[in-house]
């Protein structure tokens, strides 16, 4: 039976990893290649790496750093941040990415999702859906401007799958870095709208948060702060979740 996935989520800035709260306030979180090495050794199910300045600076992701990270990954690597055209996408795949994460570029041009899916296969296209607000008041979020984006969150989730997304990375922006727990209502919304796998991110702070999200049906959970500023690691989290009856590799 298909396991649920624990996915470290790494933010890349100027050749180092950083972590912060709500897309701000970033502290050094290590060297990309060696952090990937540690996660690989701890049997991370996958790895997300996002170049957080790329979109805003109008460029593709940092290829040198991505290549070094890819070298350490014996598990799938999803790369995002500035994946804005086919050239950037191809370059990512060429240096070792397995999947592409597109967020802003999809907002600007939804048909880009389909372009990627036709070339790389929809299973290689992950669309990042950033949502702010709470139940009943969710708004799609554009991190480039730090504010709401136009389509309604529900509509956008359906749209990206129609365009060819093979997976959604659903980010509860308000929870990011807060360690206050995942947004399970948001997950429920998305799960009801589409049939592709959904990876939930934003707010993981405790073992119980992780268990809750899996019980609520997340196909995968992405962990950021929880793995950086604490002595939680994937081995411990996996053992706990398996011990709590979750279907997780451990």
């Amino acid at each position, binding site marked *: *039976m*298909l*396991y*649920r*996935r624990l996915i470290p989520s790494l933010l890349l800035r100027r050749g180092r990893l950083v972590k912060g709260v709500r897309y701000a306030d970033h502290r050094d979180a290590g060297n990309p290649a060696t952090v990937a090495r540690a996660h*690989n050794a701890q*049997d991370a*199910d996958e790895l997300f790496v996002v170049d957080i300045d790329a979109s805003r600076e109008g460029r593709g992701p940092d290829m040198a750093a991505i290549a070094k990270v*890819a*070298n350490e*990954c*014996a*598990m*799938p690597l999803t790369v995002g941040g500035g994946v804005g055209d086919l050239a950037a996408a191809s370059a990512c*795949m060429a*240096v*070792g*990415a*397995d*999947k592409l994460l597109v967020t802003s570029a999809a907002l600007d041009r939804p048909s880009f999702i389909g372009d990627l899916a*036709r*070339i*790389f*296969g*929809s*299973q*290689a296209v992950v669309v990042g859906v950033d949502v702010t607000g709470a139940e009943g008041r969710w708004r799609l979020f554009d991190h480039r401007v730090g504010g709401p984006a136009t389509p309604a969150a529900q509509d956008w989730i359906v749209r990206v799958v129609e365009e060819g997304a*093979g*997976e959604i990375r659903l980010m509860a922006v308000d929870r990011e870095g807060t360690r206050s727990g995942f947004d399970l209502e948001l997950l429920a919304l998305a799960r009801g709208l589409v*049939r*592709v*796998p*959904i990876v939930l991110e934003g707010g993981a702070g405790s073992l119980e948060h992780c268990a809750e999200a899996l019980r609520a049906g997340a*196909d*995968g959970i992405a962990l950021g702060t929880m793995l950086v500023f604490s002595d939680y690691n994937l081995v411990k989290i996996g053992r706990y979740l398996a011990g709590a009856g979750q279907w997780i*590799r451990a």
Partner: protein
Amino acid sequence: MIRIVDYGAGNLASVRRAVWRAGGEAEIASRPEDLADAERVILPGVGAAGAAAARLRERGWSDALDHHVRRRGTPMLGICLGLQLLAERLYEFGDHAGLGWIPGHVVAVPVDTDIRVPHMGWNTVTVKPEAKELFGSPSPMPAYYFCHSFMLTRVPEELVMARTVHGGDVIAAVRADTVFATQFHPEKSQLEGERLLGAFLAWKP
């Protein structure tokens, strides 16, 4: 020399690195002629099967692989598309011809209320006893990384080496003579994958 076929459809660096981790050394085969010194061949591949099959034929790979693998008996490991391409017909974005090395059709993974598609993630695989050596003596319930929306079907049972379950049965691996192919990605399946690659490096079919 272990050669990884580059026909424009795969993450070659990952496969090469994984072979290194498993204790071997592999080079890329950029042209069909590069297979001449191959003691073992790896056929990777991600993306659309139909387009990949067309590329294999156009660039002379299907003839070269037929010669080196099927006629000379060079062991070959097919990964993901490298499994699907062996089939006769590929029903992805139309109807395309595969290499036809094994009977079988590639069709969409059936939609089911209990599962999500693409089939994405680590799934447990049931390995037939006769295939344990091919898998490198895996743990009792090994898991490997799957990442696909289309799957191989209608393969004669004696060629099927392993299965997984996603909704219904999904063929996880086949073997035909000196060809061993997996739907999952051993190069992205950490230690279990490394074991399988190690076994392939030592395989005497």
